[in-house]
């Protein structure tokens, strides 16, 4: 077993860390307050090749390995979960779904511009009545000769109001449940597509979460990804990828908590000594650090399995559940370490707490991941 990162992975870490410190961190607080979508940051990321990082070079991407991609997301997540959310939706839900399941024509048509950041994508399964149970999707796609006509309401679509295309998982035959699902590429300028940005979120406030209304939305027949009946697989494989990214981003957030706390307890003096000299304070930081290291190793293992093309659904679930919950505990403790200062937005910790709470819910709640892991461990399905 080798715990060393290779030269490329180290260079990616240094580069993205530098970029995120200079370009993401300075506006993270204001973007959170004002719910500002990070358009300018995405443009700068595109110029560096980050918007197509793991897309193969033949489709205009950079061909980055899975572990390097995870490290990239981790370093973005150190500074902003909202930017992380935007990027992982575009790359791992949008572009990589087309890469894995799309036709050659679809790959050639969309991927180069997606990798260059000229086309921003979103992806949505969720509906007002459908969360984790995607076999129960109600949004309908009807075959109409050379077109598909979609009707229904989607919600929690990341990038939905800013994207150029959104991949929608829709039902073609309710009696078939999961076997009737299809994945459809919807250009957002299609007639019958409308998106409404959701406001009032606790966290990820500068990430775009939108409700999507599809009203007789007609799209060309060739916009179906794969075949009818593969929509469930398209969604599940997308979740395997984006859960990895959520986990990696949470590791970054947790590392920020560790670093900020270690710095603060060295500087802050109470009762005539550094905060770090109080044992209960050290306990919180030690727990944070160990959980961060454990989470990182889970994420990196999932990344290595993906790179090797081996099954990784369970390992990805473990990484996603553990990292996001550890990040939430870590942010909570980091605020505690900082006392009343941590409770204000003068420091990024309260934002991290609000943001990583979302990470324990989206892309499968912590409870769903426990059920997935439990089913694999016992052989008994409890849901």
């Amino acid at each position, binding site marked *: 077993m080798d715990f060393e990162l290779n030269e490329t992975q180290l260079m990616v870490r240094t580069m993205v860390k530098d970029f995120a410190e200079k370009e993401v961190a300075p506006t993270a607080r204001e973007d959170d307050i004002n719910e500002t979508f990070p358009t300018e940051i995405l443009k700068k990321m595109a110029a*560096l*090749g980050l918007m197509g990082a793991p897309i193969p070079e033949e489709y205009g991407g950079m061909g980055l390995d899975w572990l390097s991609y995870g490290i990239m997301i981790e370093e973005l997540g150190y500074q902003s979960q909202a930017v992380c959310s935007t990027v992982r939706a575009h790359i791992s839900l949008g572009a990589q779904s087309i890469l894995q399941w799309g036709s050659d024509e679809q790959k050639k048509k969309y991927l180069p511009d997606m990798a260059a950041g000229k086309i921003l994508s979103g992806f949505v399964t969720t509906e007002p009545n459908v969360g984790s149970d995607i076999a129960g999707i109600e949004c309908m796609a009807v075959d109409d000769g050379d077109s598909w006509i979609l009707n229904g309401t989607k919600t929690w679509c990341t990038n939905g109001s800013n994207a150029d295309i959104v991949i929608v998982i829709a039902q073609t035959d309710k009696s078939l449940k999961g076997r009737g699902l299809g994945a459809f590429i919807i250009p957002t300028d299609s007639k019958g597509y409308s998106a409404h940005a959701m406001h009032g979120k606790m966290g990820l406030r500068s990430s775009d979460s939108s409700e999507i209304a599809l009203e007789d939305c007609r799209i060309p027949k060739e916009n179906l990804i794969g075949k009818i009946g593969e929509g469930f697989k398209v969604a599940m494989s997308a979740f395997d990828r984006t859960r990895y990214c959520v986990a990696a981003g949470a590791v970054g957030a947790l590392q920020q908590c560790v670093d900020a706390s270690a710095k603060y307890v060295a500087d802050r003096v109470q009762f005539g000594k550094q905060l770090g000299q109080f044992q209960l304070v050290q306990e919180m930081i030690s727990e944070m650090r160990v959980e961060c290291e454990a989470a990182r190793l889970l994420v990196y293992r999932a990344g290595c399995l993906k790179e090797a093309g081996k099954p990784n659904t369970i390992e990805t679930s473990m990484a996603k559940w553990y990292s996001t919950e550890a990040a939430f505990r870590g942010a909570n403790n980091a605020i505690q370490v900082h006392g009343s200062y941590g409770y204000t937005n003068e420091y990024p910790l309260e934002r991290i707490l609000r943001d990583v709470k979302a990470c324990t819910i989206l892309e499968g709640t912590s409870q769903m991941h426990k059920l997935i892991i439990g089913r694999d461990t016992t052989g008994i399905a409890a849901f």
Partner: protein
Amino acid sequence: MNIVVCCKQVPDPEAPPASFKIDAAANKVAPAPGVNQVISPFDEQAIEAALRIKDGQESTVRVISMGTDLVSDVVKKPLAMGADELYLIQDEALNDGDGISTAYALATAIKKIGEYDLIICGRQAADWDVGQTGVGIAEELGIACVTVAKKVEVVDGKVRVERVVADGYEVVEVPLPAVVTVSNELGEPRYATLKGIMGAAKKQATVMSAADIGADTAKTGKAGAKSKLLKLYIPVREGKCEMIEAEDPAEAGALLAQKLREAKVL
């Protein structure tokens, strides 16, 4: 245009001072665990200056780094930013030198690796801040040197440099080949790109010893140093706080400015 850039690997100057320890017996800075190695920031700006020239005209940018403890992902950063070739001069005989012996080794290496029109260095390295190497290279090669540049252009076979002076900048033009040392006023160096990183991973650095570059080891490293380090220590810093009292903010500002002038801060 053949451009050579000298890049030094140093401990991250942004690391807290408490990270650094002095080995008094050896008169050396003890290796600081946990402190990352980086390209000296002024040298990154030297790379940026070279790449700006390359952006405007066909050029080859060769980078030279010297040392025996070089970290590959650190010294390859200039390649990821857009430089073409990397030369690593690695030999124990080159260690523990001063500006003069380092300049001799680098100048010898520059002559060895091929044609050169313009040599760009950082104004000083972030570890020792001596600032002799650039001018020393020019002396060794017998060519002109312009220091503390904020802008570097090549026009009609000459290098035109805006160099920083106390109250602004002056414009200097010298014939090629020449050495230019670059200051932070040049502006932020560009980021490495993912494409650059993937390209850098595929490129192999050319590794050379003192013998390979044809250096006389009596003139390199500690043996060739012209200066002697008598004592190395971390200065004790004392903070003093003086409250400025005034009737209003304007008066307070004026009094503060006066105090700063007296202290020669302004």
